[in-house]
């Protein structure tokens, strides 16, 4: 009231102010009047006021009935359809995925098998090659060894031959050397028999 009156005084015309004041008063009056009427008319707490029960029931029946129809005929089939479609799609995708997984597994298995076969084959080839190389090496070595021992034997024979020859020559050389040495030293000649004897004696030492 105070605020309205103050606001009204700021108004330009006094008539307007009066009108405002009157309106404000009327408003307050009607409001309290309504409240009074509400309490006096029914005399009960508003939610228990039975005067509107019939209208509430009717409108609830109309609106809820309409809502029920909308739900059961439109909304629920639609959402159910959406969910079912998604469910089917997911199941289909899962089937596809499991099929692809099976294929991949089969491919992996065949790959593994081929790999194992190839490995076995490779081992076999390698073993064969190794065996062949080994036997060839042994044979070669044996041949070389035989050749070498033959050559060694021949060389030893030659060495022995040369040795005997050389040893046979040693006496004659010594005799000649001794004759020449004696001739140089004493100027005389020494009989061959004496030199041979001397050489033999020194060889005997």
């Amino acid at each position, binding site marked *: 009231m105070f605020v309205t009156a103050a606001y009204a005084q700021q108004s330009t015309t006094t008539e307007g102010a009066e009108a405002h004041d009157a309106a404000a008063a009327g408003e307050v009056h009607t409001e309290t009047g309504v409240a009074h009427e509400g309490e006096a008319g029914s005399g009960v707490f508003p*939610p228990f006021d039975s005067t509107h029960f019939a*209208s509430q029931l009717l409108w609830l029946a109309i*609106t*809820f009935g309409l*809502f029920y129809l909308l*739900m059961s005929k439109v909304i*629920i089939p639609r959402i159910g359809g*959406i969910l079912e479609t998604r469910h089917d799609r997911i199941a289909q995708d899962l089937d596809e995925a499991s099929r692809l997984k099976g294929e991949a597994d089969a491919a992996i298995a065949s790959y593994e098998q081929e790999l194992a076969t190839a490995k076995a084959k490779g081992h076999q080839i390698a073993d064969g090659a190794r065996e062949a190389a080994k036997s060839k090496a042994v044979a070669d070595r044996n041949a070389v060894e035989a050749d070498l021992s033959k050559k060694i034997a021949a060389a030893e024979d030659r060495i022995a031959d040369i040795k005997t020859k050389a040893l046979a020559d040693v006496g004659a050389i010594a005799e000649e050397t001794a004759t020449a040495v004696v001739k140089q030293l004493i100027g005389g000649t020494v009989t061959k028999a004496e030199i041979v004897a001397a050489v033999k004696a020194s060889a005997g030492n």
Partner: protein
Amino acid sequence: MSNDPTHQFLVNKIVPIEIGGIDFSFTNASLFMVATVGAAAGFLYLTTSQRGLIPTRLQSVSEMSYEFIASMLREGAGSGGMKFFPMVFSLFMFILTANLLGMFPYFFTITSQIIVTFALALFVIGTVLFYGFYKHGFGFLKLFVPHGVPGVLLPLVVSIEIISFLSRPISLSVRLFANMLAGHITLKVFAGFVTSLSALGALGIGGAILPLIMTVAITGLEFLVCFLQAYVFAVLTCMYLNDAVHPGSH
């Protein structure tokens, strides 16, 4: 606006209609029933109109509500109860939307009217009774005779069972009604404290902080209650429907 906390529950005529001497006026309650149906159906219709294989956020809200109620009903009443799915889904969505719409300031809360919640509860119990007798005939009455009770105690137990059955529509409707009513009155009272305290000057404004915090906190709580009461109503509906589908199983 009146400071009377019950003013928000007053029913006002918008279009007066009278048929056969009975008042069927289109009231603000009727308006908000229409709004509830429009909001709930509109949301569900528009969010699912794409029928996306990969749902948008709002579409997944609709789908989640569907699956939430479907699993609730399947757990509560078994696969035989799934024929009641449209009913439970409609009840849950209607009550939830009505409760949430009521949270808007100046909006009318139709679930705070005892006649509305009582009508919904009677609809549930009526369905249970109708389907129970239709499906099982007088075998439905086995519901009131639990297994393994000695003959001496049978009259007592049966009368207790019948009383508990009869009290179901009352408890179902009063639970929802009282929660919504009490919540809105509490909100209104605390919010009223804020305005009346802050009119007392600086000290009053300081003192108004506490009820303001309470108002904010209670608003949050009320949103929880809105969902919870719709959920409780739907769960109990599922349990009662279970009695109609399997009367002798408890």
